[in-house]
């Protein structure tokens, strides 16, 4: 009652001051969140980079895990990842229950676009360079999933409501140019980021190496398109001229993970345990395929026991795409990811601790990329040496040491590069083993490009030669940019190929 009287009094005052109603109405400044103008670049960059890295470790890792031959599901996970296991394109594109690679990637691109615009306005070229390199990285991902995608028209908000799709090949080319520009920007920058650059702490050379590595990855992706050879040669020579070379350590992000829900390393939190140390559902759902286990076993690969737990002294996998319940595939009868709890409280292979850094590109992958480029005669160097350092980097990462002894391993007849008749196949197979669980996405890309390694397709697939080739354009695009989608023609996941996929 007293409040009411007070309010009435207040009203009386307001009424007499009616002419000052502009002030009365001036309450539309959001008291809860800052606007873009309030924030400096170093308040924006860490978030964009962390989102990029986490996407690699979570969504992309799951798609690559299922479609790259690494993972299947246990009995407990029979209803998990069904769209991927059944090659169900329409289910994947579904807005609600699908996998939003398109949406998430363009959102992430927007974060970099906002940084780029602000960096250009403030002449902060290091930030502009990072934004360009990271944008190129995401555009590659988009093309790898959807082929033709908007580039020039993209990220303009409602100014361009129906962004025009450009040929995947053009988007690749423009993105490679973005990296060239980005490296240039970073190198000439005077204002350097510090801790806000959660990837390289403002190190110019490391960013240049990272850019070159991304470029090499993108150039190798088009290796099977004969018409691209001169373009590839030009761009490879630019990398050589630039001179910084490729990454010399794992490119990984660590914002300072905490043992708290939503602030833990995403690998740890998504596939292993939560902050109370309790296993998460994926820990029971996801299992290695029999194929992955056999590939390790064929090579007496010590990494198997470092990444996975044994069941009754042996390693047991599942069949990808199997939708039947069989006691052999129960979670407890198959090998789970090994983490600190199963490894005497010390870091295991893929799962090390809640605060482990998230890998964007591993040193091992960078070396395998160079090995392939050498084998193809694109760059000079000793194939044996680079191949060795690639395998070495994988063992070092998984065993958490600086120099794991791989001499014996390298002499295995299935591992030795010198006795391989098909050197590319050997490189890609080792790369496949090295990236397992870390950067699964590359396995699907390499499999589409080269068919290595020849893992089996889904148990529910109607035809043994059927493999998923792409994602369909998402339902959100059907709803909002329909003409463009229709103009692309067939986008079925089993019949339509992305531009660099020459079958």
């Amino acid at each position, binding site marked *: 009652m007293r*409040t*009411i009287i007070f*309010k*009435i009094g*207040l009203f009386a005052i307001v*009424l007499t001051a009616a002419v000052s*109603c*502009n002030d009365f*109405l001036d*309450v*539309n400044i959001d008291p809860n*969140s*800052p606007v*873009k103008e309030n924030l400096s670049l170093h308040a924006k960059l*860490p*978030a*964009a980079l*962390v989102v990029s890295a986490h996407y690699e470790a979570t969504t992309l890792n799951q798609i690559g895990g299922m479609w790259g031959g690494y993972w299947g599901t246990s009995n*407990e996970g029979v*209803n998990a990842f069904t769209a991927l296991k059944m090659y*169900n394109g*329409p289910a994947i594109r579904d807005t609600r229950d699908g996998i939003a690679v398109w949406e998430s990637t363009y959102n992430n*691109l927007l*974060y970099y676009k906002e940084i780029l615009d602000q960096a250009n306005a403030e002449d902060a070229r290091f930030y502009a360079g990072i934004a360009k390199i990271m944008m190129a990285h995401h555009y590659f991902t988009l093309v790898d999933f959807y082929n033709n*995608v*908007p580039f020039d*028209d993209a*990220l*303009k*908000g*409602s100014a361009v*409501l*129906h962004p025009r799709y450009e040929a995947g090949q053009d988007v690749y080319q423009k993105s490679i140019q973005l990296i060239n520009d980005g490296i240039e920007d970073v190198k000439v920058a005077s204002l350097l980021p510090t801790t806000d650059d*959660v990837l390289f702490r403002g190190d110019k050379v490391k960013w240049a190496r990272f850019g070159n590595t991304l470029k090499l990855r993108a150039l190798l992706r088009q290796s099977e398109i004969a018409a691209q050879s001169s373009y590839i040669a030009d761009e490879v020579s630019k990398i050589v001229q630039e001179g910084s070379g490729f990454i010399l350590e794992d490119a990984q992000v660590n*914002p300072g*993970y*905490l*043992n*708290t*829900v*939503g*602030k*833990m390393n995403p690998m740890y939190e998504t596939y292993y345990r*939560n*902050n*109370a140390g*309790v*296993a*998460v*559902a994926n820990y029971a*759902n996801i299992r290695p395929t029999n194929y992955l286990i056999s590939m390790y076993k064929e090579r007496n690969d010590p990494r198997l026991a470092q990444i996975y737990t044994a069941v009754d002294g042996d390693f047991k996998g599942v069949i990808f795409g199997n*939708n*039947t*319940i069989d006691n052999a595939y129960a979670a407890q009868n198959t090998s789970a990811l090994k983490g600190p709890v199963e490894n005497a409280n010390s870091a295991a292979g893929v799962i090390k601790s809640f605060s482990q850094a998230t890998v964007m590109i591993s040193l091992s992958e960078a070396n395998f990329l160079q090995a392939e480029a050498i084998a193809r005669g694109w760059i000079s160097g000793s194939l044996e040496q680079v191949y060795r350092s690639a395998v070495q980097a994988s063992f070092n990462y998984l065993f958490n040491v600086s120099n794991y002894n791989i001499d014996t391993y390298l002499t295995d007849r299935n591992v030795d590069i010198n006795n391989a008749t098909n050197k590319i196949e050997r490189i890609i197979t080792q790369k496949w083993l090295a990236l397992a669980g870390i950067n699964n996405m590359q396995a699907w890309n390499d499999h589409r490009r080269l068919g290595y390694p020849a893992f089996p397709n889904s148990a529910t697939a*109607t035809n043994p030669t059927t493999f998923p080739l792409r994602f369909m354009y998402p339902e*959100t695009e059907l*709803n*909002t*940019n*329909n003409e463009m989608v229709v103009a692309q023609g067939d986008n079925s996941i089993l019949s339509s190929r992305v531009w660099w996929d020459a079958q």
Partner: protein
Amino acid sequence: MKVFYLKSCLSFVAMLCVGITFAQQHVTVRGRITDGESGAPLEGASVKIKENPRSGTPVSGSTGGFLIRAHQGQILQVNMLGYANKEIPIDGQNHDVVIKLDRSVNELTEVVVTGALGIKRSSRELGTSAQSVNNEELNLGKVVNPLLALSSKVAGLRINATDQTTGKTDPGIQIRMRGTRSLNRSKNDPIYVVDGVPLPNITRINPNDIADITVLKGANAAALYGSEGVNGAIMITTKSGKTGAGEVNFSNSTTFANVFLLPPAQKAFGQGQNGVYSAVSAESWGDRFNGEMRDFGLPINGIQPTKLYAAPARDNRLDFFDTGVTVQNDLSFSGGDAKSSYFLSLQDVRLKGVIPHDKSSRTGVRFNGTRSFDKLTTSFNANYVLFKNNTTSDGPWLSVYTQPANIDYNEAREWEDPSSPNHPLNWYNPVAGTRNPIFMANNNRNTANQHTLNSKLEFTYDFTDWFSVTNRTGYYLQAEAGRVTNKKLVSNIATRNINGTLNDSGRDFTRLNNDFMLNFRKEFGEFTTRLLLGHNIRMDDAKLINVQANNLLFEDIFNQGSRTGELSGGSTITQYRSLSTYGEFTMGYRNYLFLTLVGRNDRVSTLDPSNNSYFTPGVSASFVFTDAIAGPKNSKMLNYGRIYGSYNRTGNVTLDPYRLNLTYSQTNGFPYGSLVGFTPSLIEPNSRLKPEFVTSYEGGLQLGFLDSRLNADITYAYSDSDGQIFNAGISRATGFNSTYVNAGRMINNTLEVMLNGSAIRSQDIDLQFGINFTFTDTKAKDLYAGNEFNIFRQAYAIKDEPYPTLRMTDFERHEGKIVLDQSGNVLPSEEEVILGTMVPPYLFGFNTQFRYKEFSIGFQVDSRLGSWMYSEVIPRMYSAGTHPETVKYDRQPFLMPNTVIKQDDGTFTENTNVLSQGDKDWWTKYGAIQTTTAAKADYLKLRELYIGYALPNSVVQRQGVFKKASIGLVGNNVFIIKHSSNQIGDPEALYNQTDGYSSFRQIPTSRSFGFNINMTF
């Protein structure tokens, strides 16, 4: 704008001076006008001096009070619609006179309606349409929510109960008047006005406190409310004290509800995969039920549990649900004298939900009081309601649709024994989504204590008999403390784990609304004039706080202090302000021709200052031709006839605060210690937004036949909302998910026909009926960025199609035949097909009340036709093998009739030999064809049924304890006839603010029966 303000301020002051100057010394007659039967005060009665027609016409206010100056010996004339005229000689003693009016017969045609700002006026002078529902009609079915009671009683009004995320024992309401005007689904509600004060929400109001509800249909009728009235207004008048001896009322109502209309499930096949039994599978792809004992789940402490492999005759899913019970107790006191009145009511509602452990309660008290002092009348209303809700979140019952037919949910209630197979650690299936639903209901609780205070303070000062000033202040406060808890469960099987979590939230909302109004009323010869000038101030303030712990350490200690990891939470503050000035001028000629002009200027805080002021003009007229033209005037057949029409252009701002700038927030785990990381909102802001405008007009014809025993009202209304402000989804390649725009246009054509009759009216027999019919055609036009716009999942706005349109994938067809691939699987069509609108264009309502001596019976039937719906439960039932279709071919490969096979070269051949597998994979693909989940939503329902018996007067008179007593039986949703294609559920039940969509989260509709007792002391 400023100039306009200044002018109005000046004119106020000028009027004040004038009023004081002209005050003269006369005999002052002051009194109250009441209903002769009930003693209730009558607002809107006009009082004048017979000898001096130019004396001005005071109108009794909300308390029935009036004030007039006269000379001794003159005669006071009191006129009130629906009542016989009354004349009283003035003898100098009439200082506090109570004038009782007797009801007249033609109350069907001419009624008093509560117009905008709570001003009572005669229906004859309205150029717009309005319909009133009184307390008795409202409380026929004894519903808890007053809005639900309006369902199907008012033409042009569509009301649906909607199940909300946490609303299992507190259902929400979707209300649409004359179609949908905004593409923004949450901005189509009318304004709710209680005793003249606009409130954000009226679900907490006790229906028994309501004297009547007037529905002002559309923007034209609610024009004085400007933007807020663009979807019409629901005007609620609460009861006030009656003059005379005090009265005490007590009533009790108890009803029992049971779920019905579940989508049917098969009972032939049990748990397993590929035709093989599995003791741990939650899907029904096993072998046929055969009545033998089988292993069920995994061994517990080394002992293998077993279960009879057979489906019970009764639908096992019904055992998951409880019988809901609603008990309402009401007690009210009222009384008053010539100067004051009071009404005090208490209500307690206890509701036990159909989901185990769900319950809610509502306890409220209302005090309405009035007091007159000389020229000043004051009234004060206060209503406090404590609402408590305790429900489980959405999850538990979803899996009831997909778990096998032999699961016994009665046994599942006994889950607490650690050695029981129903214990969450032993439940036969270890998948997180199919936990024991009874355990889940117990484990996840969502509780809220909500306090609502709604108060009004009103002063009216009668300066003279033709000029008065009113100030009405409404203060509304709602404070809610919420808590969501999940009890921790740890298992060595990861999918059984449940994190212990706690989220405490606090939500406060306050609204201060003030209307300051000047009322002028003068007669000039044959002309009557009335002018209203007003000013409105609105201040809405909201604050939301939540504190969350996502990993509790102990099973039984729900406190953020006992957690691991960091605390999370935050707060949000929202402020909204608006200032408005408005005016209404009504001129009447000989009481049969009326013209009304309305204008309102709104200024709102949510738009940029350069765009935030806008003007709403309106004009309406009404002509009672039977009074004007000599011929029909005395006709017995047609005794009353009126035509009316109106035009309005209403400005509207549906934008919430803070949508003009791009804001950033920390997500993805940020901040990590000292490292901050901000990301932008993915909704693109737009600082150039302008108000949207709704142009609407209507025309109507009202006829009274047979001495007003039959009343007909036919109205056609049109509205065109253009330049809508809405959050439009855009291509994600723009970077953003959606953007705020001024775009989109929607056109509504509405035809309403109402027929009310009083067929028999005698001492012993009374038969009344009402029929209403509404046709609404809502069409989307000129959409943002193209010809279509996705509203929600399969609901679209498509240019020139009825809104919202159901569009979905169909089977791929070739010359009408279903196309199969070479493995016999169905294929989805490349393009989606349009099925039709998702809101019913045709609404019919029929209600009747029949009384024979002490017995009465009343019922209400309604039917809604012409729309489509779909269910997302269905695909899940297909893939889980519980859908009845999946057993149609006995789970064997079959030749699907009328199909063609798609060949590699794209040609089609008649299917003569390709067998469809009829297994999980096949039926999953079949269920993914969205048209298999759709149905026509036509229905006819016996919504309410009431059978009552009142104690005869002879009995009542013999005892002195109570004055009146009655008992009754009530039923709601008594029966329903659905379209044969509809195996989905109740077409009327909605989920959140969607249309034509059955969510698997939604609880099934209930049918309820009960009784009530009423006593007056």
